[in-house]
């Protein structure tokens, strides 16, 4: 039985994936946003569980997290909101969250809830690979959750191969060494990096994240990879237009 992430990436060579912070702009926008994203043709979504101290995120996602927490978003509430999501949404859903709230929830309980509502994978930026392998891999796998690991331009080839070997869904390629939202456009160094990794022949598909904010960057990102994740640019759209015009945003990014 293949996970939805794996299926999507197997079917579709160039996916578009969207990140948004749960509870932003309004506490109960989560399902609406998910439904509209699916309808707009998005291939996969990362739902961010907001955290007070999101140290890998740039100002846009930070602010959306602060707002979401102010709105009252919690893990309990998010699972509550998502409990019937699989009735209306069928694209793969990845939950992205920092480790501390998950730890407080209880890692096993958290996995259980993810499985119950139909989450396919997790991105936990501050859960290091070795701790995952030694302590949580078994648990994640027993609940059918793919743990998505990151690589960056600074990650060594050896480590990339290790990460590839542990990964099951895709490898999250951080476009450049930077927090989210801090890239203006991709230069030669990044293109070279995309090419370099693509030519390594990893077993996992590659999806690029961080800094994708325009049709151009999207196009550059997917040239050598299997897809791209748009975060800050989408949060800015939500800030300006709320849950309206999501389809227009997606159309624009895809460049048609």
């Amino acid at each position: 039985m293949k996970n939805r992430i794996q299926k999507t990436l197997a079917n579709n060579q160039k996916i578009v994936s969207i990140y948004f912070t749960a509870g932003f702009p309004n506490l109960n926008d989560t399902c609406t946003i998910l439904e509209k994203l699916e309808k707009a043709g998005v291939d996969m979504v990362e739902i961010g569980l907001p955290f007070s101290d999101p140290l890998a995120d740039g100002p846009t996602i930070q602010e959306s997290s602060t707002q979401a927490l102010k709105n009252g978003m919690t893990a309990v509430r998010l699972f509550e909101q998502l409990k019937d999501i699989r009735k209306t949404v069928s694209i793969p859903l990845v939950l992205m969250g920092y480790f501390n709230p998950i730890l407080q929830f209880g890692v096993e309980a958290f996995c259980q809830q993810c499985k119950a509502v139909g989450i396919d994978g997790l991105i936990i930026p501050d859960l290091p690979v070795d701790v995952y392998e030694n302590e949580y891999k078994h648990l994640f796998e027993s609940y059918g959750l793919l743990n998505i690991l990151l690589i960056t331009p600074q990650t060594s080839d050896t480590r990339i191969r290790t990460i590839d070997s542990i990964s099951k869904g895709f490898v999250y390629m951080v476009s450049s060494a930077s927090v989210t939202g801090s890239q203006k456009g991709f230069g030669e160094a990044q293109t070279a990096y995309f090419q370099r990794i693509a030519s390594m022949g990893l077993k996992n598909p590659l999806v690029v994240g961080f800094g994708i904010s325009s049709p151009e960057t999207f196009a550059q990102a997917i040239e050598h990879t299997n897809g791209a994740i748009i975060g800050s640019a989408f949060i800015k759209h939500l800030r300006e237009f709320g849950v309206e015009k999501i389809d227009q945003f997606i159309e624009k990014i895809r460049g048609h």
Partner: protein
Amino acid sequence: MKYNIDSRGYYGKFGGAYIPEMLYPNVEELRENYLTVMEDPSFQKEFNSLLKDYVGRPSPLYFASRLSAKYETQIYLKREDLNHTGAHKINNTIGQILMAERLGKKRIIAETGAGQHGVATATVCALKGLECVVYMGEIDIERQAPNVARMKMLGATVIPARSGSKTLKDATNEAIRDWINNPIDTHYIIGSVVGPHPYPDMVAKFQSVVSAEIKSQLLTQTGKDAPDYVVACVGGGSNAAGAYYHYLENTDVKLIAVEAAGYGVNSGESAATSVLGKEGIIHGSKTLLMQTDDGQITEPYSISAGLDYPGIGPMHAHLFDTGRAEFVAITDNDAMNAGLELCKLEGIIPAIESAHALAIFEKKCFGKDEVVVLSLSGRGDKDLATYISHFNLI
């Protein structure tokens, strides 16, 4: 080695390196090299000579006779306030700048709360001609204005952290973000025994010069190299780590860690991590931290910018967990009174951080012949405005 770090980077169940992959190369480079570099004789030589000729070490161990008389015990103050730049923080920044230099780094970043670590970092960057960027919470920029001025004089760029409680925690987030964005030529000089492994251990080792000196000074002054108590305030815990270090495994020496209770431990405005905290992850380390049931990090409060932090270093979480150290929480008011008392009795204006440690004498009785060594972690020059307005001294 029951209370010190293990080979995996943990103190008991606390520590580790809970960092995003973006930081992996930086932290790994450090982890692989720090012990080798530190043990290198040329490193040791330069480190020790700067501590001596530049920082002014050894700092005195001063028998405070009027304070001792008042509290009917034997009080020795370890005078880190006399260090260049005014606090223990410089011991660590000297070590880390030499480390950064040997790792070929060209740019330095740091977070700061009270500004002492920021000043100490700006200082060593000037000394080595390296670019320096310091992140500091907007509230701390206000309440520690003299230190902001000093950083500017020293050529550092001070960037205000405007998120969260706008204090130390948020400045640390910003510094980590900077490091993520600048992974190759930048070294992050963390200011306390916090952060991902190997920081807590590295910082503790740089600060351990404090207890090494206490041992030899105490031997000369009292004939015994170990006191009955070592008392230190704990923000992240670096001055405490330094003062405890060589006594960690000697359980005859009782360790007291003083935390900031703000308006009171249960007032909702506090930074008493050991009482209010639970196990979790903050700034790359598994430790005790103040957090909501949902695992959101709580915004702490203390009158003291250097103690206004919702976590403690993993060493201290372990010392608390095992009962090796006794943790005491001191309110703003009690700390301020203890600070003023030291001015009046001994002619020493302590940092408000250190004043928290001094308040122990009103809280706890010590024996007439017991020797209490207290880490006077810094001087109060940065805190004059707070003291003056608290006591209406104008």
